[in-house]
């Protein structure tokens, strides 16, 4: 692996002269700067403001996640960064270059997995990868990439006969076949089984271990939490929160969540008496309460339920997650939207 990827060394601070960014922009400060940045991006479609004044920066070797519900503008944003969609206004810089002047150079250095590409079903896995390899000046042998993505057993299978997870891994294989410095992955694991998701996460982790930068979109909180160094939460075309997963969760005043259902159902006003109570939301006949500490809140809640003459049907608690953050930021649940 290391032998094939001098790119891993390239980004280390010890060897700044080897950096493409330095060579191209002649600006030493850029080295510690961002590899991807955009300002004031706007893209309006007739019926929707897909991206509405979005600023974003990705550090070298970081994994950045754009998180948000369907239709939040994640795909439009990532496709503008990928140079596939032209923004109505705003600037995009990748390695200090822009798409208008340096498209070909940038294409050599980024790898892309689109949300819904169907690769040619009549070609085999190997033929597909060999074709994509031929577009790039440099890159590993197709067989090495097939091994890395555990696709070597499917080497001679037609693309049309692959499972969803295998197709997605092949799409990622096509994204890394040019030995890119940045990987753009648009919802790489949507609709995949848990095992395929784990395999893709490993690929991302290995890519970063070799010095690569990753920008991905997802609407899975656990994926964002597990893979990303920093997360930007997008809603209605702009960033509503930005930070590391831990920072974002820390923004929630309440650190714990109690979910419960009772017969008959309780009234929201009753929860004001729970110590450390910060708010609640309702889903069907189940309540979700945001509280400071479970030790104080749970006994108090049980007492209130009993005093109300209700019978507890279910009760569960968990520490606040990104999902809870999204709910508190937007008043909606991610998966509902």
């Amino acid at each position, binding site marked *: 692996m290391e032998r094939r990827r001098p790119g891993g060394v390239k980004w280390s601070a010890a060897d700044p002269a080897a950096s493409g960014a330095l060579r191209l922009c002649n600006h030493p400060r850029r080295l510690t700067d961002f590899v991807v940045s955009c300002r004031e991006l706007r893209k309006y479609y007739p019926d929707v403001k897909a991206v509405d004044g979005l600023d974003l920066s990705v550090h070298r070797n970081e994994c950045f996640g754009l998180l948000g519900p369907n239709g939040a503008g994640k795909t439009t944003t990532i496709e503008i960064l990928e*140079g596939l969609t032209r923004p109505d206004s705003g600037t995009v810089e990748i390695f200090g270059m822009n798409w208008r002047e340096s498209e070909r150079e940038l294409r050599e250095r980024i790898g892309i997995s*689109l949300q819904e590409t169907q690769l040619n079903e009549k070609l085999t896995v190997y033929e597909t990868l060999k074709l994509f*390899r031929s*577009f790039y000046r440099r890159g590993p042998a197709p067989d090495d990439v097939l091994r890395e993505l555990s696709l070597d057993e499917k080497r001679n299978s037609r693309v049309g006969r692959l499972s969803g997870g295998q197709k997605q891994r092949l799409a990622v294989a096509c994204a890394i076949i040019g030995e890119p410095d940045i990987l753009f992955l648009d919802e790489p694991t949507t609709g995949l089984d848990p095992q395929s998701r784990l395999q893709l996460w490993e690929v991302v982790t290995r890519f970063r271990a070799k010095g690569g930068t990753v920008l991905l979109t997802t609407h899975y909180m656990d994926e964002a939490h597990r893979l990303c160094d920093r997360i930007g939460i997008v809603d209605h075309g702009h960033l509503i929160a930005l930070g590391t997963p831990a920072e974002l969760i820390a923004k929630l005043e309440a650190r714990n969540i109690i979910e419960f259902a009772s017969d008959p159902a309780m009234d929201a006003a009753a929860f004001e008496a729970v110590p450390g109570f910060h708010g609640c939301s309702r889903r069907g006949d189940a309540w979700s309460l945001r509280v400071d500490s479970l030790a104080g809140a749970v006994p108090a809640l049980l007492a209130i339920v009993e005093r109300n003459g209700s019978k507890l049907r279910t009760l569960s608690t968990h520490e606040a997650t990104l999902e809870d953050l999204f709910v508190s930021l937007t008043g909606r649940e991610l998966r509902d939207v």
Partner: protein
Amino acid sequence: MSEPRGALYELTVARFKEFLRETEAMFWVFGFPLLLTLALGFAFREKPPDRIPVGVAAGPKAGQRVAALAKSPALQPRIYEPAAGREALRRGKISLFVEGDEAPVYRLDPTRPEARTARVEADGALQSAAGRRDVFASRDEVVREQGSRYIDFLVPGLLGMNLMSTGMWGMGFSVVNARMKKLLKRLVATPMRKSDYLIAQFLSRLVFLVFEVTVLVIFAWLVFGVSIHGSIVVFALICFVGGTAFAGLGLLIAARVRTLEAVSGLMNLVMVPMWICSGIFFSYERFPEAVKPIIRALPLTALNDALRGVMNDAATLGEVLPQLANLVVWTLVSYIVALKVFRWQ
């Protein structure tokens, strides 16, 4: 296995394999034209002229007369009772009814050309049988022009039609399919040169063109004896220019379309008028003079005329230049417009 080579090479090979693995497409390109040639060739095959049915009235001389008439290659005699024979004549089942005891009496409707032929033939046959001697021995020389049979007319037309439909579908279908599946978008997200993609589509088309033309020409030659009377080089040039023109038209039609339904409709809109007007199955000379300049301007008309010229009339390069020029103009216009308006995503 081999290492990846240049993008143009890999794209061409990929397109080639994709097509080879598309069984239905293979049938339409190779099987269908052969079946069509075979069916039409047999339906319109050359037959010796039909014998003219004639009747002989029953009687003592009937057997003798039938034997004499049967010697003529043009007649098919049969014995009738007098009343039945006249009825058959009236209904046109027979063209001539031979009656009479000693000397024959010919009953016929002289306004029918077949009846007059039958009378001359029958009289000659009966006179000879009765002992008339020919004054001199004459002989026939049958005239048959090279390339004048229907199959000779048909094969260049089918060849032209095939170059049109495979050229247009071969380019159009795969491009729209790739656009629909966002494969085009994925490809332009790589450093691939867009021109490489389009040239590769075209190159793999050319390889198939060589095969499909060769197969049809050899088939028509083996089965029907249709041959190329002019220069093979000029013939190959015409096929190349024609194939290029229709690949360009296919690319133009597919340049912006997003769905297979839309591209199918457009293809038919362009191809059906040419199927009818450009002289595949019958000559466009049958159309009124006023529309002939329009028909001649169509690329398939030019291609068919040029192919017929070189195959049947041994036309030289100079003689098919107007048709080639027509095709080159279509080619240039199609490619230039197609590349200008092409939608990659």
